[in-house]
């Protein structure tokens, strides 16, 4: 892969990848480091001649492995995303989602993000996380139910206020 191709790939994939790492780890400060490490590993893996459709799940797989490594080492076990200073607080989305993610387990955050933000199918999620497709189906169902309960509870509380 030459530098121009990499720039194009980076422009197409870096933002969603950063958002995924930041939301799953709960550490925007760590997301920059992991993002760089993900692309470095991708470039040094000598598998750079893939199509974009194949590359994206592969990049998510590398990022997921890096997140797992951190969890195995006991890092990022707690959600530590700081409140956004000077940013308008949107009760319907921003705060809800941060609260929601904080209350979910890392695996649940991962599955929900890949399914609902990245629009991955169960088999693509399986490839990106190293889980079996059948496990993805079950775990995603549970995560969705839990997330819907939490979001619904929050929504009811906002409406009551």
């Amino acid at each position, binding site marked *: 892969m030459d530098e121009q191709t990499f720039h194009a790939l980076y422009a197409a994939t870096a*933002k969603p990848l950063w958002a995924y790492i930041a939301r799953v780890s709960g550490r925007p400060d760590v997301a920059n480091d992991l993002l760089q490490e993900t692309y470095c590993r991708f470039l*040094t893996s000598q598998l750079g001649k893939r199509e974009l459709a194949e590359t994206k799940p592969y990049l998510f797989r590398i990022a997921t492995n890096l997140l797992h490594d951190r969890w195995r080492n006991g890092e990022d076990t707690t959600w530590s995303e700081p409140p956004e200073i000077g940013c308008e607080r949107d009760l319907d989305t921003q705060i809800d989602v941060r609260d929601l993610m904080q209350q979910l387990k890392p695996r649940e955050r991962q599955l929900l993000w890949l399914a609902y933000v990245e629009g991955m199918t169960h088999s693509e999620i399986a490839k990106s996380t190293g889980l079996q497709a059948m496990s993805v189906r079950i775990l995603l169902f549970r995560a969705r139910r839990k997330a819907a309960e939490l979001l619904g509870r929050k929504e009811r509380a906002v409406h009551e206020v």
Partner: protein
Amino acid sequence: MKCEREQQVMEATRNGLWAPSLRAHVRDCAPCAQTELIADALQENAAKLERRLDLPPAAMIWRRAQTRRRADALQRATRRPFLIVGVLSALYSVVFLLWGLFQLPQPVYRLFITPPGLSGDVAFAAAVLSGILVVVGSSVLVLETRR
């Protein structure tokens, strides 16, 4: 419980194109309603995150990867010679130990007086050399094993 139209609901939340039949379906289907609720919230949050994001420059990552690739290549190139030296050192140390075993019953100075054809000086030099090689070889082997 899973609905067959869940994928369509996710697509619709992503592109905003809701067919009337799908909209009607979501009103009556609990899993699809949950999907819409979560997908909407997460996608909006993702869009906000991405809008105010300040990413590291691609050129910097490219340079870092190139540096790492060169370091990896260098490591791969030097790995085999070091391994060969390590194995040879180990082999040499085994030979030396076997030779030393024959000398054990004799007094220390006689360790260096060896069978005909091998002088004391040569034996001493060999002992020093093998000692160095043992240390180097062991270190290399330990490092390689750890890697």
